[in-house]
């Protein structure tokens, strides 16, 4: 069990910066999810921690120990790979026992640890099989088991669910969360899927272009994204953005998008006042746009008229692809909505949940 610290870590490959001055503290027992699009440096950060890549600048600590020059095998970590990386010629038992036998753990101890892990994962009856005789989900469990038996201080996961089908992914997600509670060890998990990040993480670290964008608990990132990238990346479907101009007067600011105009709530006015007469980016999540007929009673709503392009029925809700004055946006509305493609309809933006960003810095405008 151990904390992990990235202290101003930079990694360059032949001049290309993969990880840019990453500073991140991960306390003991945390489930940290590193999330970002491909090429954001999240996997490289994990591989630096694992010791599979060399650090260009900065330091990494596991507990109090600086591990820059510690070999991968001596860092007391275990890693689950996207491809599972099971040894094809070994049985499931030998796959799980391999690391222990290399470390000269007594045979009896290996046996009990392998059986314990197999029991946790429900793969006892697979121990004699070869990896090729297993389904994707079973291989994934063996890969988890191989990490568990090592009793490492830190578990690393590199997109472990990407090769599973959607249903199995949901199930395994919950199992990894359970495993974290049960083992009480630090988990560091890399994914490009923000749903995995939201559902499993104690804290999420969002990365883009090698740089850390924001770290925080899932709900905080969702409610208070630091910049447009985090706002657009966390949450599915993604947040809608509109280029608007701040107009009106100091006491009654308005955001003018051309096609529509919404009043700025009084509690946001001080932050937006300096932008009077300037462009800002107005952001609103699809679930904060309602069909006017089914709008919740106590919101501060602003009506907008739009044309329906496509409707996607989900059963419990409907995704409406709308367009107003040539700008497409998405709304997630009540399933009783009877909107038809081509029809014009009135929707309501919930301004209590609006976001505003500076178009230059892309940072959230707050006071």
């Amino acid at each position, binding site marked *: 069990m151990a904390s992990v610290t990235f202290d101003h870590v930079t990694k360059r490959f032949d001049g290309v910066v993969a990880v840019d001055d990453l500073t991140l503290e991960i306390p003991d027992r945390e489930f940290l999810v590193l999330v970002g699009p491909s090429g954001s440096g999240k996997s490289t950060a994990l591989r630096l921690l694992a010791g599979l890549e060399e650090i260009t600048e900065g330091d990494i600590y596991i507990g109090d120990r600086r591990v820059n020059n510690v070999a991968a095998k001596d860092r007391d970590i275990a890693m689950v790979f996207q491809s599972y990386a099971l040894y094809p*010629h070994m049985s499931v038992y030998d796959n799980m026992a391999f690391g222990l036998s*290399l470390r000269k753990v007594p045979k009896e101890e290996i046996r009990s640890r392998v059986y314990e892990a197999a029991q946790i994962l429900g793969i006892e009856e697979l121990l004699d099989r070869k990896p090729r005789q297993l389904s994707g989900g079973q291989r994934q469990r063996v890969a988890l088991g191989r990490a568990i038996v090592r009793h490492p201080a830190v578990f690393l996961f590199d997109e472990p669910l990407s090769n599973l089908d959607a249903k199995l992914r949901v199930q395994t997600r919950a199992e990894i969360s359970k495993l974290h509670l049960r083992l009480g060890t630090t988990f560091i998990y890399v994914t490009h899927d923000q749903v995995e990040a939201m559902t499993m993480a104690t804290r999420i670290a969002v990365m883009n272009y090698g740089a850390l964008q924001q770290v925080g608990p899932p709900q905080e990132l969702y409610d208070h994204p630091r910049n447009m990238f985090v706002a657009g990346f966390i949450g599915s479907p993604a947040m809608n953005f509109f280029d608007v101009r701040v107009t009106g007067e100091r006491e009654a600011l308005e955001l003018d998008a051309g096609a529509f105009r919404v009043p700025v709530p009084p509690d946001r006015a001080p932050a937006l006042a300096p932008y009077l007469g300037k462009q800002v980016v107005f952001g609103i999540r699809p679930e904060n746009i309602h069909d006017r007929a089914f709008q919740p009673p106590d919101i501060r709503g602003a009506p907008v008229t739009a044309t329906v392009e496509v409707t996607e029925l989900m059963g419990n809700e409907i995704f409406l692809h709308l367009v107003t004055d040539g700008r497409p946006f998405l709304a997630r509305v009540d399933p009783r909505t009877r909107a038809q493609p081509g029809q014009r309809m009135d929707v309501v933006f919930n301004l209590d949940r609006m976001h505003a960003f500076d178009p230059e810095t892309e940072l959230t405008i707050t006071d």
Partner: protein
Amino acid sequence: MPAPGSTVRKDIPAASGAKTAWWKQVLPPPRRLPLHAAVIALAVLWSVPTIALLVSSFREPAAISVSGWWNALTNPWQFTLSNYDTVLQNRGMGRAFLNTVILTVPSTVLVILVAALAAYAFAWMQFPARNVLFLFVVALLVVPLQMTLIPVLRLYTELRVDVELPLLGGSLFGVNSFAGMWLAHTAYGLPFAVFLLRNFFGSLPRDLFESAYLDGASDLQVFTRIVLPLAAPAIAALAIFQFLWVWNDLLVALVLLGDPALFPMTVQIQSLVSSFGQNYQVLTAAAFVSMAVPLLVFFLLQRYIVQGILAGAVKG
């Protein structure tokens, strides 16, 4: 995902066989008949000389000079083992057979040992000028063996150690030595062996190696416990290639071995040709003695040859 039809055919051939007429099982679909006919015709044509050789080797010397080998098929039961007897007993083929084995086995083992280690380093270890060195090794593939014969011979004459070996015979090293032959054959075999194995090792997924490193394995442990077991098909294929090459080698042995006591079968057979140009029944038997082991090796391991040739081309 295999198509449902193919699964059925694979899993229950007996059940489907009961419903289909027997000739449908034996004959290919009509559309492919010309192809099958052509393949069979080629195979027969290709085998005729070898079959002729085999049949002749069992015929009486007198019969061979009077009639063609096919007459033996219409009038069987006139076969004899006397040619084989002559060859093995009187013409030194017994000792030559032993010499060939002594030459071939170590030459094969050495190549695999050295090439596997080199290929692992070229594929997975980081060191300066790795690619340049590998390119250099591969470039050696184009050097004709004949070009090296005289330099090697001169070198071996200089370096000869004239200590008679007990059991094996021949000198300790240099010309007329088994050790010199092993070294020469190993060197000739290495460029191709390193090339083949490096490409196979290189096609193994990187995750496997990284996973093993994290599990605590050293390079040597990764090599012996992960790479070698997975590379078994490629190594088997390489072993067969190298084995056949050394077994059938005439040129190197002719140049580097002068002592008739050390001659392998190829050289021995060649000397039979000159002295027995007339009664070639001995030659037929000698050729078959020399072919027997490669044929056996080939039939036992042919599965691996195909796998090894495909190695690297198909993943997983």
